[in-house]
């Protein structure tokens, strides 16, 4: 038994190391983009259009991952684009998390009319296809980083709300809540001091996962040309361009896609790993 637990724990710590490591790389790339990027991400050069990656025939050695349809360096654009992606992840997801978690805790713990109101709002939100909702919002309030963040918060808070409400309902039925009641703690104190610590691991795991989802939503908005301005590099924007010239220059699509893929995967796995870390029973 102990052996099995050890193996599982080892697998878990590998998950944390790998996902945390990759996200560390992305954060560094975003923070030090001007120092790391070999070229200006906006510099167009029509003579250097669609250069293949450095290891292929016809490549220029200075352009490691090739150039896009306007002759801009793919690697530099990927590095600069991580700034937008991480801004969205670290601003939009936490705000959505706070709004959704607070409402979910209140609805799950107090029940009654509080729960009725929150649940009806959630019902309405659930009746929208989230991606379409986000696209609609950005189309209405106009493109730009602030709009994108606002749209993600608007569509994302209910995911926290639903999970936290369900988890709170489970915890509320435990005897330790009754015994805190017996002590005389007020309802809000029980919610904050007794219930919240037991719901927190689920929130942390979801927050990490939703940071990845925020990055994806931004990419989708860029893909349909509705994110920030068209010039500034975003992974989604690069993918959209790559999709149109996929038969001539696959690398314009492939490299941002791989980076996006790994980033989203890392956020998800980090969440799972953290959830286990937080669980005292597994320690």
């Amino acid at each position: 038994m102990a052996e099995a637990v050890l193996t599982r724990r080892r697998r878990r710590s590998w998950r944390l190391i790998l996902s945390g490591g990759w996200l560390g790389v992305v954060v560094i790339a975003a923070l030090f983009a001007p120092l790391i990027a070999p070229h200006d991400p906006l510099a167009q050069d029509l003579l250097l259009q669609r250069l293949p990656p450095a290891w292929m025939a016809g490549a220029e050695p200075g352009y490691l991952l090739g150039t896009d349809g306007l002759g801009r360096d793919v690697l530099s654009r990927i590095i600069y684009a991580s700034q937008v992606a991480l801004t969205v992840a670290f601003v939009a997801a936490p705000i959505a998390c706070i709004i959704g978690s607070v409402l979910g805790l209140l609805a799950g713990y107090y029940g009654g009319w509080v729960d009725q109101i929150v649940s009806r709002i959630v019902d309405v939100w659930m009746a929208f296809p989230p991606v379409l909702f986000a696209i609609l919002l950005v189309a209405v309030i106009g493109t730009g980083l602030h709009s994108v963040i606002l749209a993600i918060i608007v569509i994302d808070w209910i995911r926290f709300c639903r999970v936290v409400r369900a988890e709170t309902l489970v915890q509320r039925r435990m005897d330790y809540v009754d015994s805190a009641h017996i002590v005389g703690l007020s309802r809000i104190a029980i919610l904050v001091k007794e219930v919240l610590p037991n719901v927190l691991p689920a929130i942390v795991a979801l927050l990490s996962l939703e940071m990845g989802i925020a990055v994806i939503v931004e990419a989708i908005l860029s893909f349909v040309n509705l994110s920030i301005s068209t010039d500034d590099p975003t992974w989604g924007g690069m993918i959209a361009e790559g999709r149109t010239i996929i038969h001539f220059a696959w690398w314009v699509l492939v490299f941002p896609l791989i980076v996006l893929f790994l980033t989203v995967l890392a956020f998800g796995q980090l969440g799972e790993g953290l959830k286990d870390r937080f669980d005292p029973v597994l320690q």
Partner: protein
Amino acid sequence: MTILRAIATRIATTLVTLFGVAIIVFVVIRVAPGNPIAMMLPPGASEEDIARLTALYGLDRSIPEQFVIWLGGVLQGDFGTSISLRQNVLTIVLGRLPATLELSLLALGIAIVLGAALAFVATRWRETPAEAGVDVVNGIALSVPDFLWGLALILTLGVAWPVFEISGRVSPTLDLPFVTQFYLVESLLRLRLDITLNLLDHMIMPAVALALPLAAVIAQLLKASLKETIRQDYVMLARTKGFSESRVILHDAMRNALLPTLTLTGVQLTFLIGGTVIIERIFSYEGLGNLAIDAVINRDLPLIQGIVILFAVLFVGINLAIDLLYAILNPRLRHG
């Protein structure tokens, strides 16, 4: 009698939800700056022309007034006229709906088969490398959304090793003798298997992209549920009767494990259908989602409203159906 009243209550809350959706869409798209009429007319159109068309579409009235007029129309089955396509909204939307439904159902089928198979393998060969493998696959499929799977499939099976078609619903060169928009169903009914194959050739990659996250969710829920179930005394009792482990899982545990999975799958199915919006865009698939994005970009207010309402009806209907199905399958509720 009580059952009827219960169903009536449930339908009433459903209508409240739809009303909420209608209000939100209506208000959100009308606070948008810019006049959509100006966008549809050629540059240089006179102020007079713009004003005339604005009045024609009722856009010169106050928002509550517009809402009442629109709602009155909707209740009579009139969703208005599309500004960009100049056609009846309901006709356009219902014309595109079959394409999206066929894609979603194909994806759902793939997800259920794949998810159930993974859960079975992980349970039958639990605590072996097979289970660990399923966990890893699941973990990846869970955290990577359909958008990325779609692009990855285009790159691999569409471009690098071109096995499947990467755009459209059916090859334009094919002559389609169909009367409905349910091409896949109709081609099967008319035994035009050549067309069926061509349709599947286009649909398989978007369907798999949509199915993968849902398959992972189903596999994860079902596996957890099966693991819980096979620890139950009645499963142990079945084992002592001399049945094989596979039979015990399929015969004595699967049905119990499916019930909790089913309730959670309803919500996930709406996520899948919501995913068609971007997946159809990526694969240039002529469905409702692709239409929706065009409508947003063109500021086609009546069309956007129509599409969102249709999605909402679909989603709410699915959740209602899942609740009823759960009640039918659970003997505890049936005979309660």
